[in-house]
């Protein structure tokens, strides 16, 4: 079968690889019908996630049709059209039972790597490095999905493939930021990043009752989507001071909830961007926390900051004093897919959550290297490329 493989830093190729097989009784094999590039893939591509091996199949945000199931799969059957959660969850451990599915104890066969990095291992993730299990990804014609009863969800009639594909990762990740960030009716919410996840976090905040939602980015096309389709307000950080703008917009108080949807390769118009870039390139820090810093500084006293963007290790000049003295709640997480996906599919079916506009470039799987090039460099107003195997 054809698959998109990581061949080295900033190198992707489309190659022929073996088809996956059922290896456990709770597995399913899914024929992939749509698979989206995610912003977090760019960190893999750029070599910031250090446990990639040449030949790894990437991709983790996808939908497809079940073509084979293991003997212990009881809730899904061949022919089901499903959206798949990127993180693998057993459904039975302490964390899965609490709804913290991406923290699953039982799905990373290489726990030594994340334990050395972070002190404990989260769950495994499809197509996302050997630190998270070395599982083959979804940019392929077929994929093996362990614990299929827990991590696959039947797509309701009336939800198109182009809408449903973002129920895999972007929509549940964005929803999680608003939900676990504690967005309540009447809140003012600021979201850093107008990519797919940032837009979904903004939409979730609106649906959860926030009175004002403000999205911050530098790309006019993305900010236009955030205002025209999502219904948020926008700040272009290259044109104004974000902190001053937010203070004025919130009557001098600051946003109640600040959601960071940027991650370790953040940009900024401020001088600390240059400092972070030099330190990251010299590998003296693993991420550029520019947007996280700004979110912490902007947040109102006693407010909440949620980190949705992916970070791999250590960052410098972290404003811990602001977190402590302003009494902030700081949280982060990888996506707890099964907690949100069924609800999001229903909202998609009712038309409350639209996502088709995010797929600015739909192309055959063969063109994935070109799609990633557009996505990485933000050319042709690319928000997300989606590949059809």
């Amino acid at each position: 079968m054809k698959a998109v493989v990581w061949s080295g830093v900033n190198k992707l190729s489309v190659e022929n690889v073996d088809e996956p097989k059922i290896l456990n009784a709770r597995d399913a094999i899914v024929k992939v019908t749509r698979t989206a590039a995610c912003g977090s893939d760019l960190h893999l591509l750029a070599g910031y996630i250090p446990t990639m091996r040449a030949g790894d199949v990437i991709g983790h945000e996808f939908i497809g049709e079940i073509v084979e199931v293991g003997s212990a799969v009881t809730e899904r059957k061949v022919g089901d059209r499903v959206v798949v959660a990127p993180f693998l969850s057993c459904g039975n451990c302490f964390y899965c039972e609490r709804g913290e599915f991406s923290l699953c104890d039982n799905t990373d066969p290489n726990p030594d790597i994340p334990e050395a990095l972070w002190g404990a291992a989260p769950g495994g993730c499809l197509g996302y490095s050997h630190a998270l299990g070395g599982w083959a990804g979804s940019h392929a014609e077929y994929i093996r999905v362990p614990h299929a009863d827990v991590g696959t969800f039947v797509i309701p009639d009336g939800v198109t493939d182009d809408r449903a594909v973002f129920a895999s990762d972007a929509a549940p990740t964005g929803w999680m930021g608003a939900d676990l960030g504690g967005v309540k009716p009447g809140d003012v919410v600021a979201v850093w990043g107008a990519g797919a996840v940032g837009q979904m976090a903004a939409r979730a905040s609106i649906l959860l009752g926030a009175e004002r939602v403000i999205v911050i980015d530098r790309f006019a096309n993305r900010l236009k989507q955030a205002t025209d389709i999502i219904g948020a307000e926008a700040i272009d950080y290259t044109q104004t001071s974000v902190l001053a703008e937010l203070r004025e917009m919130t009557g001098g108080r600051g946003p109640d909830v600040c959601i960071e949807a940027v991650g370790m390769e953040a940009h900024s118009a401020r001088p600390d961007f240059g400092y972070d870039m030099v330190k990251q390139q010299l590998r003296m820090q693993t991420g550029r926390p520019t947007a996280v810093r700004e979110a912490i500084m902007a947040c109102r006293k006693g407010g909440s900051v949620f980190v949705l963007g992916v970070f791999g290790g250590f960052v410098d000049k972290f404003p811990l004093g602001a977190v402590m003295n302003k009494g902030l709640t700081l949280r982060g997480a990888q996506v707890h897919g099964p907690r949100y996906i069924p609800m999001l599919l229903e909202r998609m079916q009712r038309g409350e959550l639209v996502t088709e506009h995010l797929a600015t470039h739909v192309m055959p799987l063969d063109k994935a290297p070109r799609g990633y090039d557009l996505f990485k460099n933000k050319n042709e107003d690319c928000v997300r490329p989606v590949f059809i195997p």
Partner: protein
Amino acid sequence: MSKIVNRSLAVALVAAGTVTAQRVMRLYEERNPAALGKDSAGEERWNAVTISAEHRLVVDGELPRPLQGLEDRIEVRYRAAPGDRGVELSARPRPGADSVQELRGEIRKALRESKQLIETGEILQSLPRPEGHRPATPTGAVVDLAERIGMKGGVL
């Protein structure tokens, strides 16, 4: 002549410095048992996992299958987790066991597999992968090494 004296003096100074540094370090370690990340419990330390299961594991008496092969070389302890949150399954090498470091790795793997088996009914297999085996690049070889350690390593 003076060159030889100078060199001898330098060697003697370096040797004395090394011995002094070693003694200072030993003294520091004696006073601070956790210095350099050293685990003061040593071989008595239990490796442990908490399993979402009834505490009946204790009364069943039979070790989970992954631990059975190590039975002669390890001690095993069960106890109820706080807050009725399952059961803590712990193991450590028996006193005098051979190749303790290697055995610790086997214990970690067996504990993780026991937990998976009890909680999910299966031990998740990750190989073979569709992409098959490919020659390792220098950084790929490091990833391969980490994977070989895999479930035998880590902080458990």
